[in-house]
């Protein structure tokens, strides 16, 4: 099945907008994606292996969170998965324009 990769994550899929992976379920397809591009792991999954809460995965046009079987839902080769991360861009940065760069932020 095809997985659509959003722009912010294409840096980790060798710039490919769509990746074709094997898998009988959503979870298997995502696992195959991460196996092919290990750098995606930390962007898609928490240390416990759950999908991160700011990354939504859609099976065709439905949010996987609202499917009865969630990631265990079986998929057909013609189905498409889309990764929809939260993006925040829109205006100028929050700091005053002439202030120095913000301190580097901590993250896991």
């Amino acid at each position, binding site marked *: 099945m095809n997985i659509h990769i959003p722009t912010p994550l294409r840096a980790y899929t060798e710039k490919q907008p769509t990746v074709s992976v094997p898998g009988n379920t959503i979870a298997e397809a995502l696992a195959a994606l991460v196996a092919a591009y290990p750098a995606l792991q930390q962007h898609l999954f928490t240390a416990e292996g759950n999908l991160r809460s700011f990354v*939504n995965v859609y099976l065709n046009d439905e949010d996987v969170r609202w499917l009865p079987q969630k990631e265990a839902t079986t998929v057909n080769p013609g189905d498409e998965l889309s990764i*929809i991360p939260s993006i925040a861009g829109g205006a100028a940065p929050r700091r005053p324009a002439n202030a*120095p760069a913000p301190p580097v932020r901590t993250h896991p």
Partner: protein
Amino acid sequence: MPKAMDPPIFPSLSNEEIARYSRHLILPEVGMEGQKKLKAARVLCVGTGGLGAPLALYLAAAGVGTLGLVDFDVVEESNLQRQVIHSHATVGKLKVDSAEQMLQGLNKHIHIVKHNTMLTSANALEIFKGYDVIADGTDNFQTRYLVNDACVLTGKPNAYGSIFRFEGQASVFATEQGPCYRCLYPAPPPPGLVPSCAEGGVLGILPGLVGVIQATEVIKLILGIGEPLIGRLLLVDALGMNFRTLRLRKNPDCPICGTRQIKELIDYDQFCGVPKPTSAGPLEVNSNGSLEGNAYASFADAPIVDGIPQISVEQLKARMDAGYSPFLLDVRERHEYAIVDLGALLIPVGELHRNLHNINVPKDAEIVVHCKSGIRSQHAALLLKEQGFTNVSNLAGGIIAWAERIDPKLPKY
């Protein structure tokens, strides 16, 4: 069909206004009544940047009677690539003043309310109270969640738009029946994981597209026509020129619009895990905060973030001048390297794990990683540390800080 904004008394239109709005007046879906609704409407644009610029321009042109503008920033040269509400003539001016000038030039019949402030938990509810619709065109997750929560708490619909590089999202959140932003994304990404437009770039036209979609939604909400993007997320892909909508559902467990356990605004910097913004006013320059360079000191005294020393550009310069240059690694993209570089080895952050063999120094060699502003390079430094490099530092502020404080001849982008 949504319920239209229903102000008690519609203002009348002057003959001059009737002439101005004639293309609306002959449209049955707007007509005289609709145009009066627009005149009576009060819309708040949060941000007058990439999204806020086209949004406010079209709302002003359409005759929205009261337009509030929230921004604390000043106009910069680099804004003009997309923020079409500002101009060369207003570079250096407050954005709210610059925007007002353009908007009143476009439509003298409307009233502009300037909020020259950073939207915060302390002022958001008070500011929102005076408006019917809020349009969120901000650039950071803290303000996204703040705007969402304040909209839910005050019962104001949020015409939402967001952009990154070539992609955009739009929706209408926080209506009575529809989902809110937290239903879509319960929690923000950790800082640094999703780059901002300042770090990741954005196609200048994209906020134009998305901002105009937001304006369309605002107008539809005011007039009560059409099908607003309630319960739908519009995805815009400017490169493929594809528009898709995905279904959004109201989350019954949403802490703000579902269970309503959140009853007041919270600390959104803390929620998003970022340092508090500076309290300095828009025209005040903050104290520089750079660390004094000492040519002979190691970087051991630099602040540490997740085990990575954060060295200042002054420290790096002092080390280089003293002939103790560390191995310098640039993890920006090739097109950024083409704009300006510090002579470092270039390996874009997304390719780093496959190209470690190109870092041709011993694992205990001193390595300094830099990017544009210090966020991607922190990621890269963590990756190098995981891969066994033991002496990796991050250049705080990146090549921009270098251009600002060490070599002002270098271009800034």
